[in-house]
């Protein structure tokens, strides 16, 4: 080993926010190498990926459309992650939100009414919460690992949605495609910027960012979440209930993911399909970490990840690059971030010969 780690007396606050920037720079650098390796002009590819999507008004709207579910879910997940509750199944909770909220739209398909959309939103949130309640219950009652349970439920949710759109909820006039009927106007989120697909959901995401900040910085349960996450023994001594924090974290994450799912089907998609999310529930995990588990950071990280989705689509169209490049970029960013985070707690020094040899 040529380098060694020396623990800082206290964590570096500057590094907490610099680390994502360094990680982003390293990801871009690796992107250049990756593109060169694939025989694509790196400058052109980076332009297609990160600049071209934002050269139009429509593009900016799309950025917000894609960032909305990511930010919504990541704000809630980051609160759970702070408590050490690993809800990895947000993708499944998103699907259940879409099913429950979308179910209302299909149930009242022939009825117009101002109350339909609010009811859909409530049912979407409730659906996500119900799905997240399963790992919460099994964890608190039977000590079953919430990572594995929530993840298994994601596969179950995907199959359930597939069953519904292939079976009972399939549009009988839909040329036999596995899709539900298209939601009517009262069951669709209104667009708020002409010439784009930007919809009311983006405003909800911003509201959730603010609410998330208030929750974590100004409420008792937010304080309990932080204490249980950072010093479980102190939390127990103070009489905070770990059980309560687990329930709270999972229901919060499930509710937010359910809302995100409802927003997707009532907004950009407008009906139920076998696939309603390009993995927003998983990408939101990366967003939460890149955003430093802080609502404001999550907002920026969500926009960045949304750009990587748009960039993937634009690079596919203009350069014929596979869409999977997006996933590789997202994974690399998280790797580099986790590596750079060592700088928060440690300094890196060249190991001198006289120092104790690190094993």
């Amino acid at each position, binding site marked *: 080993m040529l380098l060694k*780690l020396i623990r800082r007396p206290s964590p570096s606050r500057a590094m907490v926010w610099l680390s994502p920037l360094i990680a982003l720079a390293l990801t871009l650098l690796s992107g250049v190498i990756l593109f060169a390796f694939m025989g694509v002009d790196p400058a052109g590819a980076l332009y297609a990926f990160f600049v071209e999507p934002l050269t139009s008004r429509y593009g900016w709207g799309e950025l917000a459309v894609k960032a909305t579910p990511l930010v919504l879910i990541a704000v809630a997940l980051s609160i759970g992650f702070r408590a050490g509750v690993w809800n990895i199944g947000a993708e499944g909770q998103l699907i259940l939100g879409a099913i429950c909220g979308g179910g209302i739209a299909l149930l009242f398909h022939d009825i117009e009414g101002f109350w339909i959309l609010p009811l859909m939103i409530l049912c979407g949130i409730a659906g996500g919460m119900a799905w997240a309640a399963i790992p919460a219950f099994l964890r608190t009652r039977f000590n*079953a*690992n919430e990572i*594995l349970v929530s993840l298994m439920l994601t596969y179950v949710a995907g*199959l359930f949605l597939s069953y519904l759109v292939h079976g009972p909820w399939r549009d009988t006039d839909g040329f036999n495609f596995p899709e539900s009927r298209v939601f009517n106007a009262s069951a669709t989120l209104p667009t708020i910027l002409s010439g784009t697909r930007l919809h009311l959901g983006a405003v909800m995401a911003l509201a959730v960012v603010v609410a998330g900040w208030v929750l974590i910085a100004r409420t008792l349960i937010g304080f309990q979440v932080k204490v249980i996450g950072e010093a479980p023994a102190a939390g127990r001594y103070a009489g905070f209930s770990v059980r309560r924090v687990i329930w709270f974290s999972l229901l919060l994450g499930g509710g937010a993911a359910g809302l995100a799912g409802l927003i997707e089907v009532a907004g950009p998609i407008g009906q139920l399909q076998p696939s309603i999310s390009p993995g927003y529930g998983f990408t939101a995990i990366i967003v939460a970490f890149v955003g430093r588990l802080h609502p404001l950071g999550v907002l920026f990280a969500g926009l960045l990840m949304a750009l990587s989705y748009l960039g993937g689509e634009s690079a596919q169209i203009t350069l014929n690059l596979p869409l999977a490049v997006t*996933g590789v970029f*997202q*994974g*690399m960013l998280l790797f580099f971030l*986790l590596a750079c985070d060592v700088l928060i707690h440690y300094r890196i020094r060249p190991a001198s010969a006289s120092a104790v040899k690190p094993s």
Partner: protein
Amino acid sequence: METLLPTLLTIITAATPLLYAALGEMVTEKSGVLNLGVEGMMLVGAVVAFAAMHATGSASVAILAGLLAGAALSSIFAVLVLGFQSSQVATGLALTIFGIGLSALLGQGLVGVAYNGLPKLPIPFLSEIPFLGPLLFDHDILVYGSFVAVPLVAWFLARTRPGLVLRAVGNSHDAAHAIGYPVLRIRFLAILFGGAMAGIAGAYLSLAYSPLWIENMSAGRGWIALALVVFATWRPWRVLAGAYLFGGITILQLHAQAIGVGVPPQVMSMLPYVATIVVLVLISRDQNKIKLNAPGCIGKPFHPTA
């Protein structure tokens, strides 16, 4: 009797990838490291093995390529977790997300290509025993490998010096370090072993189980393997039992779909995932049992100078 043998044979093919992945992860966890990246390593192992098969036509090269790909991916995890002190949970998730993306990227030109699968290697004389012969002695190399791997791993962990050191490191890294064992080096090797086994599991999927490449073809098997390790309470022979139990459930629901029991196919396909949850609950219910068997330092970072 007519249908029993084919059913048992398909259960073996369904159980083999789970067995490899879970056995590898168990050794990693025994050293005190939780690697949640099994799904990603399996997928990359699957696509690299399939690409190697496509390029060379040699099954042994393909298997080796899958093994190395899984190990290579796990080495990223090892460097981050051991060298950079990153969170094991977060890094493992990153590995899965990265592996899903990378495998989809690498597999671009391979969708739609198909092979005959791995050649069967019947063992002379033994394979001619009625029933038992075809059941146990007429398989491809990877199934034989999985039969051998379980006793080997069990023997390694229980009866060899390196195996005992590995368990000591997993149970108390501070004590192991104080005695002078190289904690980080042992963990690095254990992580590589887990990655290599996940790579082989992936190779089995794309070379033998369904000899083609489809994006996300592991379909959660990496996560089921993780659950199997808990189910097995970190014991190799129980990993074997668990893998065959889950292989059985997978095949059972496929057969039920084929017969047409009136349940929608999607609902039948939920069965392995639901069964995983049920099994996890049954095992985890008894906290003492988990505490007694789980490696003491699992998930905890180790810094030698701390």
